[in-house]
Structure formats: C-alpha cells, structure tokens
C-alpha cells in the first residue's frame, strides 16, 4: 500500500513538460515535491497566482503570498498575480492542463463527492465545483477506503455531489484506475497489493483485463 507521498509520487509521473497544473488541498499538494527530472510545470493556485513556488525559508514568510490552502508560499521567477475572476477564467476556460483533487467518494460514472457530509462537515466547496465542471483532465488522489474501511469507489455516490461524470483517472493507495464505460478499469496495482485486495476494496463495478502491472515508483 502507498502512503500519501506514494500517491503523490505516482501522480507526478503524469505531469508533462510545460503543463499548467492546479493542485487541490491535502494529498495533491504533495505532488509539487515529486516533479520528474527534466520537466517544468507551472502551478496555478485558485486564489490568484500562476507560478506558485515552494514554501518559504523560515523568517521569509509573506502574509500577502498564500496558496488555496492558506499556507505561505513563494513565487517562482516569471510568476504572475491576478484577481479571482481571472483565476477562474483560467480554470473554467479550460486553460489548465491537469487538475488534481481529493475525494470522499467517486462513482463508476465519474461523479465525485468531496465537499459535504450533511449534518457533520459543511465547510463549503471552494473552487472544487468550478474545477471539476471545467477541467478535461482530472485525476483524483485519495485513499481507496475510508477510515471505517468502507470503499470510496462506488456504484453511485451517497454524499452530495461536487460534479457529475467528470472524473477520468483515480490514483489511490492501492491502485491506478480509469473511469470507463462499464465501471472502473484497473490499470496498475500498488507495490505489494494484489488484484484480489483491490476487488475486495472496490464497491463499484471493476474491470480487470489481463495481467495488472505493479506501479513503478
């Protein structure tokens, strides 16, 4: 099984040179630590910066330079700042090449729920609905099962939706899966994880064809 960093490392392999990338809060932010050698990407943060850099050195934090998770950051050379309407024009106008976000549930038709647990957690959707409705390249980064051991890859979402039919690829601590007609298609297994383990942890329809290779990390 992978840990959070393992999931991030595997998704980082999907990055392509000169891509514009939006990383959601949580596991996705770790992806910035694993950019492959020889590749350069620009990170967009929905609160208004393109060319987001790593966290600052201690003592150099700037209260006027934060990311979508309200963490202090730096700006790379060539970075630019813009207002929130312009930021979401980039997002909604499909100028972002890759969007990575977390989820509580993903359904086999690509529906995603990641913003609300009625009566318990109602923090708000932030930019998630704009991101999933507009992006044509979305990867979900999440654990395969929740804290109670229940599968997060379902026939249908039970929680309030963030978007419909939008997820194309999922990377969990157990597997890489594509969302296709008919269900979740198993693409890769995490190191040490068997196909049987993945079948047992997946509530939605799982398509397993041929030999399933192990992730190379």
């Amino acid at each position, binding site marked *: 099984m992978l840990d959070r960093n393992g999931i991030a490392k595997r998704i980082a392999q999907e990055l392509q040179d000169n891509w514009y990338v939006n990383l959601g809060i949580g596991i996705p932010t770790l992806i910035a630590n694993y950019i492959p050698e020889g590749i350069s990407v620009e990170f967009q943060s929905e609160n208004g910066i393109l060319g987001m850099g790593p966290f600052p050195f201690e003592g150099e934090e700037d*209260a006027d330079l934060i990311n979508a998770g309200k963490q202090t950051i730096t700006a790379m050379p060539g970075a630019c700042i813009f207002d929130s309407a312009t*930021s979401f024009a980039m997002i909604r106008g499909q100028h972002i090449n890759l969007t990575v976000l977390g989820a509580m549930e993903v359904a086999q038709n690509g529906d995603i729920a990641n913003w609300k647990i009625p009566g318990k957690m109602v923090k708000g959707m932030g930019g998630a*609905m704009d991101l999933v*409705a507009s992006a044509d390249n979305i990867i979900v980064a999440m654990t395969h099962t929740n804290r109670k051991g229940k599968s997060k890859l379902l026939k249908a979402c039970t929680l309030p939706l963030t978007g419909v039919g939008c997820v194309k690829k999922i990377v969990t601590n157990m597997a890489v899966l594509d969302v296709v007609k008919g269900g979740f298609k198993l693409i890769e297994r995490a190191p040490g994880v068997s196909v049987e383990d993945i079948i047992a942890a997946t509530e939605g329809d799982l398509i397993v064809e041929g030999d399933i290779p192990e992730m190379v990390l």
Partner: protein
Amino acid sequence: MNKVVANAQEAIQGIKDNMTLMLGGFGLCGIPENAISALVELGVTGLTCISNNAGVDDFGLGLLLQKKQIKKMISSYVGENAEFERQMLSGELEVDLIPQGSLAERCRAGGAGIPAFFTPAGYGTEVGDGKEVRMFNGKPHILEHALTADFAIVKAWKGDRLGNLVFKGTARNFNPVMAMAGKITIAEVEELVEPGELDPNHIHTPGIFVQRIFQGANYEKRIEQRTVRSRQ
C-alpha cells in the same frame, strides 16, 4: 477629485442594519481589517455578508460572527471558522455556499452590468437546484445571477485620492471584482499616495469604482498556516 476620508469610522458611515456588504479577502489575506473593527464597534446587525471565507474565530469576519452581527453569509468556504460552522449547523446563521468561481464571476458581472450568465459549475449538484439549465457545446450549464452590495469594502496596498488601487500579491483575490460591485465602495489602503505616483499602466482597480478611500493603520496581517521549508 478627492475621495479621501479620515479613517474607518468615517468610511463606514451610512452602513445600517440589514444591509448587504461585500468584503474582500481570501482567508485572512487581503481583508479590510480596519473596516471590520469599525463595523464591530458600530454594532450594526442583521448583515448579509458576501465574502469568500468567514475569517477565523477571533479575527476577520469571525469578529462580526462572534457578536452575532451577521444574519446571512454568502461564501465558498468556511472551514477555518469553528464558530461559523456551529452557528450554521444550529440554524442561527443562514448560509449560501456557492462555488468560488461563480462567486467571483457574479461579483464581476454585478459591477459590469451583466445581469446573469451561464456556467457549468454546480450543474448536477445541490447548487444547481431550481436553476435554469441550458446546453452549450453539448454540455449543461446553469444560470447564475449577478451579485451587488449596498457597500463593498476592499483592502489594497496603495491607492490615491481618485480611488485608483494597486494590490500586493495574493491579497488581491476578490478585492477588484467586489470593488466594482458595491453601490458604494470603501477602500482601505496601506499607503495613500499622491495622484501621479501610481503608474497608470499598473493600476489594478480604476478609481471610478471607488467612492471612499482611507489610509489604514496597524495591520496585523495574520498568517493562517505558516508553512516553511528547511535550508539544505
């Protein structure tokens, strides 16, 4: 032309109970600290506040929430404020959670004379409930309406007496679009400069959108998540 007022207290004159306010900022970044303190002091209640976030428990809009001055919030994310979540779950506070991009565009539209627009964000979710749906390019979109406010309160880095504003870093965020959408827009700035000092090419918000401007003071600029990396 001189839109300068002496301070926050003077700037918020005319704000009354039950009004709708827009407040700039993302988290605690770029919030109009002085005006918020003045609103707490003034004691207006029944406010509808349009702001991306709700501050933290003891800073930003959290201060107005603590004093129960807000009747309704229109925001996209309120996770950093436990008091907010509590008031919302208990029904004390009315909340409209709306997608961040739609919030930004609704404010921009409000200032730009666009009464409504279609967006794909929220289609198929509870945000889309009861809203007109139309297909464009084979994809469903929902109709969203413009947002305006009795007063928009924004925070900028520099401004002049004509109301021109320049913002710094990610403290810009919602401030420019909200500045456009207020019937009366109040701007608090860190540095009030002479006309001509701001390069016309570098002005972010044209003064035409701003009605009152004042030199702010004692900015705390609190950092919510101080994250650093080690020198190696």
